[in-house]
C-alpha cells in the first residue's frame, strides 16, 4: 500500500476549478517530483494534501488514514510536514525559535533536543545564526530554515513547494543536495518544482501537471528522456 494516496482530487477556488480530478501515489522512501508550469495546480495540490485547502471531491489517504477532511494542524502530528512556497519563516522570531516552532506538536524535550542537533548538523549555517532574526537571513538561508523547521516535527513524509524558487544557482544546488540527504535519511519526499530538470534528476518518479490534470507520469529518467517533457519543461 502506498504511503500517500490521492484519488480523483478536485479543488475549486470559488467558481474556478484548479484541480480537475487527479490521482497519484507516493510510496515510502520515494522522492516524487510534481512538475508543471506556473498555474498548473502544483501548489494547490500540496495545500490540499496537507489540509490547508479542502477539496470539492476526491480523497487523500496517508498511511491508511483518510485525511481528506482533517484540519492541517492535526495532519502535522500524523507525521506529515509541509515546507510552503516562499518559505514563510516567522520573520520576527529568531532562527532558534523558528525551529522550536517546528516541534510544536511534540512534547518529549530530549527527542526535540536530538532533532535540533540533527538539524544543526545538516544545516551548520543555521547553528551559526541561531540567535539572528529569521527575517534578516538571505533567501537561501531562509529556505534552509524552512526545511529545518519542517524536519523538527520528525515527519515521515515532507512536502516541499518550490524550494529552489528565487535562489542563486549555488544555493539551488545546495538545496537539492539537502533534499537528497533528507531522503537518504529515510524521509519520503513529495517535491513540487518549476525547475523540472533538477527535480527529476533527484526524483524516483514524477508526475507532469498541466492546467489541473496529470498529463504524464513515469520514472524520473523516462520523463527526462521524453520528447514532450524536454520540449515543454527542460528547454531542450
Amino acid at each position: 500500500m502506498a504511503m500517500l494516496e490521492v484519488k480523483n482530487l478536485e479543488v475549486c477556488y470559488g467558481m474556478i476549478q484548479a484541480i480537475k480530478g487527479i490521482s497519484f501515489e507516493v510510496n515510502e522512501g520515494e522522492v516524487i517530483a510534481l512538475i508543471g508550469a506556473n498555474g498548473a495546480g502544483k501548489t494547490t495540490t500540496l495545500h490540499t494534501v496537507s489540509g490547508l485547502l479542502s477539496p470539492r471531491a476526491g480523497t487523500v489517504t496517508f498511511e491508511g488514514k483518510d485525511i481528506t477532511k482533517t484540519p492541517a494542524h492535526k495532519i502535522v502530528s500524523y507525521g506529515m510536514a509541509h515546507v510552503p512556497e516562499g518559505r514563510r519563516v516567522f520573520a520576527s522570531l529568531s532562527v532558534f525559535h523558528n525551529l522550536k516552532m517546528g516541534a510544536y506538536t511534540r512534547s518529549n524535550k530530549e527527542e526535540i533536543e536530538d532533532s535540533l542537533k540533527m538539524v544543526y548538523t545538516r544545516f551548520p549555517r543555521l547553528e551559526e545564526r541561531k540567535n539572528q532574526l529569521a527575517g534578516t537571513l538571505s533567501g537561501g538561508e531562509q529556505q534552509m530554515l524552512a526545511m529545518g523547521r519542517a524536519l523538527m516535527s520528525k515527519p515521515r513524509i515532507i512536502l516541499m513547494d518550490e524550494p529552489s524558487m528565487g535562489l542563486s544557482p549555488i544555493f539551488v544546488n545546495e538545496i537539492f543536495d539537502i533534499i537528497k540527504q533528507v531522503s537518504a535519511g529515510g524521509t519520503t519526499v513529495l517535491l513540487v518544482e518549476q525547475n523540472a530538470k533538477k527535480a527529476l534528476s533527484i526524483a524516483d518518479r514524477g508526475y507532469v501537471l498541466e492546467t489541473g490534470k496529470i498529463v504524464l507520469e513515469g520514472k524520473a529518467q523516462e520523463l527526462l528522456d521524453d520528447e514532450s517533457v524536454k520540449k515543454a519543461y527542460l528547454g531542450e
Partner: protein
Amino acid sequence: MSFLSYLINGISLGSVYAIIALGYTMVYGIAKMLNFAHGDVIMVGGYAALTMMLNLNMNPFVAILVAIVVCTVLGICIETIAYRPLLGAASPLAVLITAIGVSYFLQNVVLLIFGSNPKSFQSAVTFGDLQLAGGGLVISDEAIVTIVSCVVIMVGLTLFISKTKAGQAMQAVSEDKGAARLMGINVNGTIALTFAIGSGLAAVAGILLLSSYPSLTPYTGSMPGIKAFVAAVFGGIGSIPGAFIGGILLGVIEILGRAYISSQLADAIVFAVLIIVLLVKPTGLLGKAVQEKV
C-alpha cells in the same frame, strides 16, 4: 505636591487604559482585526460585578472573579459567533462593521436589562488611602491597586507569551496563520484564547476604572474603549509593551491637560498628541515594521 498627585492620578488612569489597550493590541496582533466591541465588554464586566455584589451580596473578590469569567466567556462567544465566520471574508470591513454592531448590541441588551439610570459602583478596594509627607500627598488605595495590577498583568502576560507553548503559538499565528497551521498550531483555538484573555482583562480594567470613577451606565465602556484604542495605536498596535507605555502616557497627558490647560480640552489634547505621534512615527512609539528579505 499637587503636580505629584496629578501625576499619580494620571498613571492610575493610564494603567486602566493600558489594561484595556492590551485587549485591542493582542486581538489586532493575532486576528488582524479591530474589535470595537472591546470597550463594551468592560461595561458588561462592571454590571456583572455590581450585580454579584449588590443583588447577591457576594464578597467583592468573588464578584470580581465571576465578572472575569463572564467577560472571558463573552469574549469567546463574540469571537466564535460574530467574527469567526467572517475571518475569510473578502473585505476586512465586514469584520469592522460587525464589531460596531456587536458594540451596540451589548449596550442595548444591558440597557434592556438594567435601564439607563446610572448605577453607582461601590469600590472593590477598601484598605484606606495612603498618606505621605504628613498628609501633603494622598494616594488613593484605588490608585495603588490599579497601578500594581497593571504592572502585574504586564509582567505576567509578557512571561506567558515568551515562555508558554500557547504564548509561542500566539506569536506564530500573529505572524503567519498559514505557516502556523503547518506547524500544528490550532489557529482558531489560538484566536479564541486571545479573545478570552483580552476580555478577561477588560473585566479587570472595568472594575478598576469603576472603583475610581463609580458611575455605571450602558455607555460607560465606549469612551475608555476609544481612548484605550488610541493608547494601543499610540504605543504601536500589536505591541504589548507599546500598549503599556501608550496607556500610561495617555492617562498622564489627559489628567495633566485637565489640570493645567483646560478640562474641556483634555480629550482634544489627547487626540492631538496622537496625531502628532503618528505624523512623526506612523507605526506608533514601539511599533515596528519588520524588514523582510525576499
